[in-house]
């Protein structure tokens, strides 16, 4: 299983917003439009509920908001980069979140879901990768970094 299989060039964003709520809403909106999902409200509700249980800011400037929802046929991965950071996104090390990987999977796709999360974390553990992502100037450049 490779992370490349889930990276979609249409779901890579250079984020303008710098508030957690707006960032997540923007990413969810784009996902639902792009993937033609008709349950945007449900996705919003699920993502924010998950955040209320424990923030997905995992440190090192990374956030991995994630959720499983009924009716999703295959896992969706969206990537957002905010160079200036998202100060109100809670993290375990207080380093502002600059890289957001939003993952949505089907309710019964437990195994793939866990594996994608693990692949994301493994990739982003490398500081070089994180720096390149933050410095990237375009979506295409981001895409190339992610699939390399």
């Amino acid at each position: 299983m490779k992370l490349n299989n889930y990276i979609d060039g249409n779901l890579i964003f250079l984020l303008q917003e710098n508030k957690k709520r707006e960032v997540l809403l923007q990413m969810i909106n784009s996902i639902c439009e792009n993937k033609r999902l008709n349950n945007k409200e449900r996705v919003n509700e699920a993502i924010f509920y998950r955040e209320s249980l424990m923030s997905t800011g995992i440190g090192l400037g990374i956030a991995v908001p994630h959720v499983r929802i009924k009716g999703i046929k295959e896992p969706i991965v969206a990537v957002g980069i905010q160079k200036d950071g998202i100060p109100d996104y809670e993290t375990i090390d207080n380093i502002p979140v600059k890289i957001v990987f939003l993952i949505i999977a089907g309710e019964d796709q437990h195994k793939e879901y866990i594996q994608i999360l693990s692949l994301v974390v493994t990739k982003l553990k490398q500081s070089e990768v994180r720096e390149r992502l933050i410095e990237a100037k375009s979506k295409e450049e981001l895409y190339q970094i992610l699939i390399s």
Partner: protein
Amino acid sequence: MLIGLTVFLGTSASRLFKRFKVPQVIAFIIIGFLLGDSVFGIINREFLSAFSPFNIFVLGITGFLIGGELKKEIFGKYGKQFINILFSEALLSFVLVTAFVVLIGNMFFDNSAFVWALGLLLGAISAATAPASTTDVLWEYKTRGPLTTTILGIVGLDDGLGLVLFAIASSITFAIVGTGAPAISSMFFHILYDIGVSVGIGILGGFLLSLIIKKISDKYGIITFSLGIIILILGISDFLECDVLLSAMTAGVFMTNYIPRKSKEMFELISELMPAPYVVFFTLFGAQLNLGNLNLPIIFIVIGYLIGRTLGKGLGANMGARISKAPATVKKYLPWCLFSQAGVAIGLSILASERFPGEIGDSIVVIITVTTFVVQIVGPLAMRIAVTGAGEAGLNITEEDIIRESEAKDIMDINVPFIYEHMPLAQILKTFSETDNLYYPVVDKNQRMLGVITVDHIKNSLMTTGLHSFIIAYDLMEPVVAKVSPDLPMTEVFEILNRYNIEYLPVVSGSDKVIGFLERRQISRKIFSKLIELQKKAEALG
């Protein structure tokens, strides 16, 4: 229509009587009495006569099932005890009933031959104990222990002794009343013929059935072949004019000792068929009762019979138990368990009326019918008190019984640890390591059901790296397929588990709060422990 009415009313009455802890056989008899000629006249004599073959069938099946309880291991352990008790209670009953009837009869009748004939025949009949109603009470109260084993052994055997005594009494009666009685040698030949041929038919029939049962495994085949062979045994015994009960019982003894494992399923399947026939059998018996034939001498003889039989059975059983050093519960409670008389006694009374038509036969039929009615009211009640007092009620329970009688709240694990939805992976792993559950309920802060974490989920997360810091229970849980309430019968719990092919079910309150958890393997464990506990209780009784 009458059969349907009989079954419906009998069953309804037994449910009502059960609330007052009265044995169901009494309900059947009372309903029969009400339906019979004595009250509403719905069931008449012609109908009852037509059902004679059915009565033989029910008695035969009962004898077969009783035989099935008589395993050689029991005789090895209890043989001497059975023989001592059997002869004591049967012979003392015979002696005392004969004495009382003769004493009372001489006060009312001048014909001493008639009085002695009555005494001897009634004395012989008094030796028999009703296997059907006795075992019905034992099965109804699911008893197990030395008292139960002794009762099953005695009621199975004393019918045979009753037949022997009746044959002897008949021959003596023939001589007394001077109706061209056969000689003593012919009398003994007849006894030998009766018992020998009955046992022979039973063994042959049992052997044939065992050959068939060994080769088939489907339930339909087992039931149909078993019933077919049993009916054949009964038919041949009846045709050869020997004892149908003894033949059927011998076949049962043969099966349970020759192919014990394979025959166990057969006996269970046949037992499951019997509730409805028993309802009809005892209800029709109640319908036979006609109080119009009672006169003062007969009433006094009835009283004398009852006193003599009660004393004989009671004192004889106690004496036999003491001589053979039976367990304390047998010595104390067995005297209360041998009062019932029914099919065999009634059958012998009908036989007496055929052999000695006229005053002797008619008197015997009335006396036995009335006394049977009385002892069938008192007997099961006394037995219920005895088996409960001996601590043997409720010990003969199967796994199916426990499941049938339990609800979710009786079996559920109330100590299952909750996994709160925000609990991080590290804490979840700690919980897993400290308990042996394979499934855990995930709940919100109000302990309401959200999902379940399984050991597979844990395995998946362990095999991946870097997740421990941000994965929580909410991420790992799977949605719940079904939930049950605490008062759902366990039979329905299993039905849901099988329908969805799942291994667990959360138990929730009305507000969806988790109050317990059912895991299939833990259910099995719990039921098994309960069975072991009951088995140990039964063994501790002696």
